[in-house]
């Protein structure tokens, strides 16, 4: 493992290099607002069940990430840092001070992709849908690859406070580390509750979890 501080340094270095290159070639601003586009989006959707039309409204992070050309510029990289700080500020540590719950429940949460659609209800128990994108327990061969493999997550990284905090934060609000991460902000948007996140943490980090065998 490369220590976190070094990672930051490397990131800054990359930023600097990008910056120099960018100054010469890349003068790019955020995409212009398009009234025609906004009109289309406003007229093309309707509310259905729990999925109401206000979901079309974007927050600052979503707006930024909808403009991949700008994201790839220097100005974009600077903006990303600012949004990451903003997202980091939304995270609270576990209220009972405990990071690890029950890995068995965690596995069930990782398997379930339910919740949040117009065919769900407010009472639907949401899943994390983790296997949609990640390999976790190797026994589950039906896993996606949009995110990195989490097999042996705890075995490789251990369970230091640094790892606990990082993992907790990442599940709660992945955009605190990567403004345009593909991972939903499970804590921030209350997709999962604190107990569910503790259970997922256990699936990843508990030495007893099948993930760490």
């Amino acid at each position: 493992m490369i220590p976190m501080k070094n990672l930051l340094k490397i990131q800054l270095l990359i930023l600097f290099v990008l910056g120099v290159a960018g100054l010469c070639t890349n003068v790019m601003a955020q995409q212009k607002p398009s009234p025609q586009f906004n009109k289309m989006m406003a007229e093309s959707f309707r509310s259905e069940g729990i999925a109401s039309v206000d979901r079309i409204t974007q927050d600052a992070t979503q707006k930024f990430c909808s403009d991949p050309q700008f994201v790839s510029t220097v100005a974009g990289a600077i903006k990303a840092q600012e949004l990451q700080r903003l997202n980091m500020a939304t995270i609270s540590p576990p209220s009972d001070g405990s990071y690890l719950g029950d890995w068995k429940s965690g596995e069930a949460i990782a398997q379930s992709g339910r919740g949040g659609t117009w065919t769900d209800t407010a009472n639907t128990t949401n899943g994390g849908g983790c296997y949609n994108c990640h390999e976790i327990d190797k026994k589950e061969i039906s896993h996606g690859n949009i995110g990195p493999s989490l097999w042996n997550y705890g075995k490789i990284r251990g369970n230091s406070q640094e790892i606990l905090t990082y993992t907790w934060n990442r599940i709660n609000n992945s955009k605190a580390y990567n403004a345009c991460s593909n991972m939903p902000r499970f804590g921030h948007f209350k997709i999962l509750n604190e107990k569910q996140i503790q259970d997922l943490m256990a699936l990843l980090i508990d030495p007893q979890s099948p993930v760490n065998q």
Partner: protein
Amino acid sequence: MTLARGIFKNILFLLATLIGTHYAIAQSTADDIAKYREMIAEGNPSELYEMAGEELWKKPGGPKNASLEKCDLGMGPGVVDGAAAQLPRYFKDTNRVQDLESRLMTCMERLQGIASQSVIDAKFGVGPKKDMDAIVAYVVTHSKGKKIKVSLANPKEKAMYEMGKRAFYYEAGPFDFSCASCHGSSGKRIRLQDLPNLTTHEGAVAAWGSWPAYRVSSGQFWTMQQRLNDCFRQQRFPFPIYGSDVTIALSMYMAKNANGGIMQTPGLKR
């Protein structure tokens, strides 16, 4: 220094091995899935919808008791062969860019007197949408093997493409998903389903060229409208209105990216 280099080498080696084994496992699973798909490929139940659709196309129906045989899908009244491969396109009579379903709604309304709203309001797979599914199956079967060929010559077509591209990257909702979250890079999967990269020609041909399709998981024939509807559902977006501009814009974006590819419609999907 040398120690650090040694560790670095070790890590590299470890990584290579890890990736290697993982790749091997993933590959054998992929081969098995490919065999499964090959085995289900013959006998596409879309044919059952197509048969029903041909009848609906030729049979007088609706309040005006007329058939759809004079419907202009862009290549002249009644021309079905290859029509789906050139949609969406701009239609002068409606002054709109239309995809297959929205164009068929125009024909059903004008020729047969079936109100478009009744099609829009119907649930998928029932009533007028059931008829629509069958008619779509019939029309797209007659574009099988044809080259995808949409035009951006008309400014409205060009504008539609640009808005489709913008909509493709539009991130919103409680999951922060855009179309690009799943379909913006190559070699990605959800569970075991390969996700076509719709920003590339290859990926766009794979997707646009194989929908509409019969889905074995639901045992239903899905039009592109329904395919997009379910994408938005899983994206945790609100409900896209049937035949609305965002669905047509995204279709135009995909079709344009797929231009030159071959239509394999109707497809057969998991």
